[in-house]
């Protein structure tokens, strides 16, 4: 089992969600987040004073899925979220030891 965490531009959330559904991946958790990578935020002006806003609004989606869906998921996310400009986001993948469905104690792959 794998966990995929992808940090996206908020405006790309719907496209990514649709692409994942199309790839047969059901179930996800979405968090509203703020942060920055190499993209260093933007400046705002209020009455002539310049403010640097370096934590930008982002969306983070979390998926836990079977190992064989890995490439399909990566493909779906990158193709839907890419604009080619700085700030498009990142994908992190890690191993998951166990999954348990609270409703009926199912474990492992069948709990996903």
């Amino acid at each position: 089992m794998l966990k995929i965490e992808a940090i996206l531009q908020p405006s790309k959330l719907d496209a990514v969600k649709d692409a994942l559904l199309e790839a047969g991946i059901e179930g996800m958790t979405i968090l509203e987040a703020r942060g920055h990578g190499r993209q260093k935020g933007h400046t705002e002006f209020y009455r002539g004073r310049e403010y640097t806003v370096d934590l930008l609004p982002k969306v983070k989606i979390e998926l836990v899925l079977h190992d064989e869906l890995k490439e399909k998921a990566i493909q779906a996310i990158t193709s839907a979220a890419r604009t080619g400009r700085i700030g498009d986001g990142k994908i992190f993948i890690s191993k998951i030891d166990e999954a348990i469905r609270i409703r009926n104690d199912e474990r492992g792959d069948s709990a996903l």
Partner: protein
Amino acid sequence: MSGRCFRYFLPVLCCALPTLTLAQTSSAAAGQAPATQAQIAALQQSIQNAQMSADNAWMLVSAALVLLMTGPGLALFYGGLVRKKNILGTMMQSFAMMGLVTILWAIVGYSLAFGHGNFFIGGFEHVFLRGVGLTPNTDYAPTIPEQTYMVYQLMFAIITPALITGAFAERMKFSAMAVFLSLWSLLVYSPMAHMVWGVGGLLNANGGHIPSLDFAGGTVVHITSGVSALVTALYLGKRLGYPHTAMPPHSMVLSFIGACLLWVGWFGFNAGSALNSGPLATSAFINTHFAAAAAALGWTIFEWKHNGKPTALGAISGAVAGLVAITPASGYVQPFAALLIGLIAGFFCSFMVFKVKAMFGYDDSLDAFGVHGAGGTLGALLTGLFATKAINAAFGAGMATGAMDGHWGQILNQAAGAGIAWGISIVGTLVLLFVVDKVIGLRVSHEEEMAGLDLSQHGEEGYDLNP
């Protein structure tokens, strides 16, 4: 044509009527009922009643419009500009003035401003509103009940100290603020109102030693509040972390609504200052609107060139600056002079806020001085330049009003009026701040300032986003 002409025309009509009717009866054929003295008196009375009803309707609406400027107008405008932990604290400062100044005004404030006193301050004849009834006070407004005049003036007394709160936002104790501004309204506002508008006042346009023109409160409201704001910001010191920590406005939407309410309310402030619903009110109404529009443009152009983008905050701040600058001039100038005054104010006030504040580094948090102090002073001087007898023969029929009529000396009178307003504001505010600081302490503690005024002063929060 000014409202005065209308005013003079009525008594003439009333005097002419009996003569006319008598002449008719003597020459008319017998059988026509002769008009009796009683009928004529009844006619005169009903003309007076009709005029009072018309003027009183507008003045009551104007009073309500001026209150609208403080709450919700100013409360929203300032509330949006602070950080979200201070929104209730900021709004409560304006709201507190609606309560406290009203009570003080009824007890003694109105009397100190508009009672017969000396050149500096009114007397105690109207303490507890003694003698302030439903008949007109011919010293001030001969066609409306004196209580209407009293409550209309009260709304000005409310907004003036509320304007100061912008300079000390996010860092003063509620208790200290309440005492400081209550005393300020009696010791700075009332004398200044008396000097400019009160019978026998030093700066009164009708018979004062230095006849100075202030139609709706450029010196009385905006210079006093703006200069006191600067003094308070300097006395109190900067907010914790200013200017290194970012303190951007938390809701431009609230500020936007507030500024637009200020614009609308200002029609009551300026056009209402005609004290009747005649043509002079129309003139002031149009000048008010024109200046706001031109100043919004002026500020936006300055900012667009300066920072590359026309901001919403710039546009609304410009409009307020224009409204401030036209306030003393609104009943004295032509519409195109109002456009010019607004445009100049837009450039000048944005320059004060962008450049001068940064140069000196004072923390006039919401720019009460940059907009009201600077704009009010500019407006007072430009009133002397653009005032004309074609709009308002303020010094008597046929007499030159301002420099437009060739009366250049009026600019000096205006400067003297502005200077006195600066003086009384600096001295009065410093004394009151010193006393309140010694007795109560002005500033909240560091911890309270970090937590925000909402929690530390009021024990509640502006935004509870939990369901």
